[in-house]
């Protein structure tokens, strides 16, 4: 849920060659849909909802409106962020920036409406659900807003501070993904919930840093200190290896001494193996945008495995 993608849309000629036998108009519509999903961050909505459903399965919670609320908030925050950063993104993501500028008004109303509906739905979960729903929006204001610098030169945008920027993003989403299902279910925070929270926190941090490799030039121009900007691509890869391996150890320990079941641990460990392979491609892939999407798609793998393991398939 921290992805930025910017692969160039396929040109018509390539499309025809690759999709022999498929009507060109259908292929065109397909690519338009793909553009809308990627440039507006709509695909992240689906992945975010899957993450919340993963929490439901792992914590054995009854289904509640949390996936819908998180999906709406994800769309609102990410599409809203792309509206705010449209000018800056013109350097690193010209196609996405052009898409956002072209549909700015519609996206603006949709994102505001999505958050409004999310907040209204969260009222059914009580005050805690409301507070957690407001958290990503509040963190986004802290993360990206120019409000802090107006308070004095001592402050600067949290988005520009090394590690703090990615940690804020990761914390906001980890709290929302794990906390909201619990709040809606009025369930207690158990050690298992703590383990799941740590997993999502570190994993989201990793997924936030992957697209930062592609955005080095834009981030430098914007004065944003990310790990790739400060440490370089090779050492960033090592940091990502380190974080993924730390998670592997953490999941192993949680399985051995904590509340994690073998099915859950197995699904997560497969997902972390997938993440380690992706980390190897960081800085080496010719299509970094797809690498970021692949990082997010890991949650689909974990969820599918979790369903398979827990249902005994």
């Amino acid at each position: 849920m921290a992805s930025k993608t910017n692969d160039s849309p396929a040109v018509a000629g390539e499309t025809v060659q690759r999709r022999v036998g498929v009507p060109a108009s259908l292929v065109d519509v397909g690519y338009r849909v793909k553009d809308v999903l990627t440039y507006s961050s709509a695909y992240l909505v689906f992945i975010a909802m899957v993450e919340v459903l993963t929490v439901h399965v792992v914590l054995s919670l009854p289904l509640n409106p949390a996936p819908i609320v998180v999906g709406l908030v994800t769309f609102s925050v990410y599409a809203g962020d792309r509206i705010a950063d449209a000018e800056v993104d013109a350097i690193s993501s010209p196609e996405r920036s052009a898409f956002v500028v072209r549909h700015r008004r519609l996206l603006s109303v949709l994102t505001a409406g999505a958050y409004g509906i999310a907040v209204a739905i969260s009222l059914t979960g009580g005050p805690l659900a409301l507070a957690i729903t407001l958290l990503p929006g509040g963190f986004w204001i802290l993360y990206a807003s120019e409000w802090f610098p107006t308070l004095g030169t001592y402050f600067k945008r949290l988005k520009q501070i090394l590690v703090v920027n990615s940690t804020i993003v990761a914390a906001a989403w980890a709290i929302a993904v794990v906390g909201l299902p619990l709040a809606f279910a009025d369930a207690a925070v158990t050690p298992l919930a703590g383990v799941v929270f740590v997993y999502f926190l570190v994993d989201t941090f990793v997924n936030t840093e992957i697209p930062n490799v592609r955005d080095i030039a834009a981030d430098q121009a914007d004065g944003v200190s990310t790990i790739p900007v400060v440490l370089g691509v090779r050492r960033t890869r090592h940091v990502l290896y380190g974080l993924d391996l730390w998670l592997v150890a953490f999941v192993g320990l949680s399985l051995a001494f904590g509340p994690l079941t073998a099915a859950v641990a197995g699904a997560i460990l497969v997902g972390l193996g997938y993440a380690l392979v992706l980390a190897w491609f960081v800085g080496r892939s010719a299509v970094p945008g797809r690498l970021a999407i692949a990082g997010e798609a890991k949650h689909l793998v974990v969820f599918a495995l979790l369903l398979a393991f827990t249902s005994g398939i």
Partner: protein
Amino acid sequence: MSIIVPLLFGSVAIGTSAAILAWRARPNPGATPLVWLLIGQSWWSACIVFRLSAETAAEAVFWTRAGWVGVMIIPVAWVLFALEYTGRDQYITRRNVALLSLVPALTVVLAATVPYHDLLTVRQAGVAPDGTVIVEQGGVWYGVSAAYTYLLGVLGIAPILELLSSRATAFRGQSAALLVGITTPWAANIVYNLGLVSPSGIDPTPIAFAVSGVAYLGAIDRFRMFGANPAPTWRAREYLFDHIHEGAVVVDGHDTIVEINESGADILGIDPDRALGSSASDILPNGSFQPDGGRDYLTVGTESTSQSYDVTVTELTDRHGRTLGHVFTLHNVTQYLRQQQRLKVLNRVLRHNIRTEANIIQGYAERTADDTAETIRQRTMRIVEISEKGRDAIDLFEDAMNSQYRSSLVDLLEQALVAPATRSRTSPSSWSCPRRTRRSRRRSPSS
């Protein structure tokens, strides 16, 4: 109850959405106060939802008390919005905001400390048939806060009302939407406080905020509230009046100075703060500031640095033509007067020299005895006569400037069109003149 809850959810959804749109519209005038207003109303609605879903009386009372934060944010944010949006942001100082927030802050403190006093009471008043806890509010301070809220509501509406008569369609639409947005919940609140609705004790005001939210969204999106903003209009008028090169003094019908710009104060050498509200007869130089026009140029300063001003009087009238006051504008004519003086001197010297030379020529001519002498004498007299035409030109110029009684264009047209037609007994061409709303009279200089 079954209808109220969905409406409350709608109120929160719309209010939050509008707040986000307003937040993105910063730093446009009015955006930030509108965000606070919408946060206040959304919080109030959310607290009512929590109160209705409360399982215990204590919980219901707690959320009713918590709702006071939203209740008291709204009127302050509304006034600040109205001032900023209409360009009167010079009144939004920290001191004024603190003063405006005094009663709301006290109210929130009293709501938080309800168990320790009776100024503001919030207590359970029973249980509705559907199991909802009915909460009753009252106390002396409840009336004070309600009155204060209504007062700020009216104060905020006043500048917005002005926009209803704007020539710009967008501003009229914006102001109409804003008025619907603010009057709907206040009307609902008044009806509630009069005990006309809601036997279950639920204040319908936040529900009316759903209507407000739609109105605000309409103002933002349909009427481009933050795309076409009237804020500069007010400031532009002020700026023009304050920074116009010519001095300007506005005197009302009771001879009181009601406005004076920086140039006017500088020219007259008076302190604007002291002049405003004072009698014009006491402050302004006698004789030069008469509504019916004076006789002299206004001269200020010492002999060497004196400056002369032509004082123009413009009558201000209301739509019925009744005099409201006068605007005196001071136009610096020092340079003009000096050049006029130099021209007179030059003219006099020129005529004198010509006359002298003519006399010399005549003297020489008289030494001759033939008819040529007479011809020379006549020609030199002719030259002297021509030189006198220069004085006539200056006199003509001065007469034009000094003319106290100017001809009315209407009268001239009547003379030119109607009178000849009457004489020739033909129908005059139809014509009309615009209604005169302001009259300007230029005073007559004596020099």
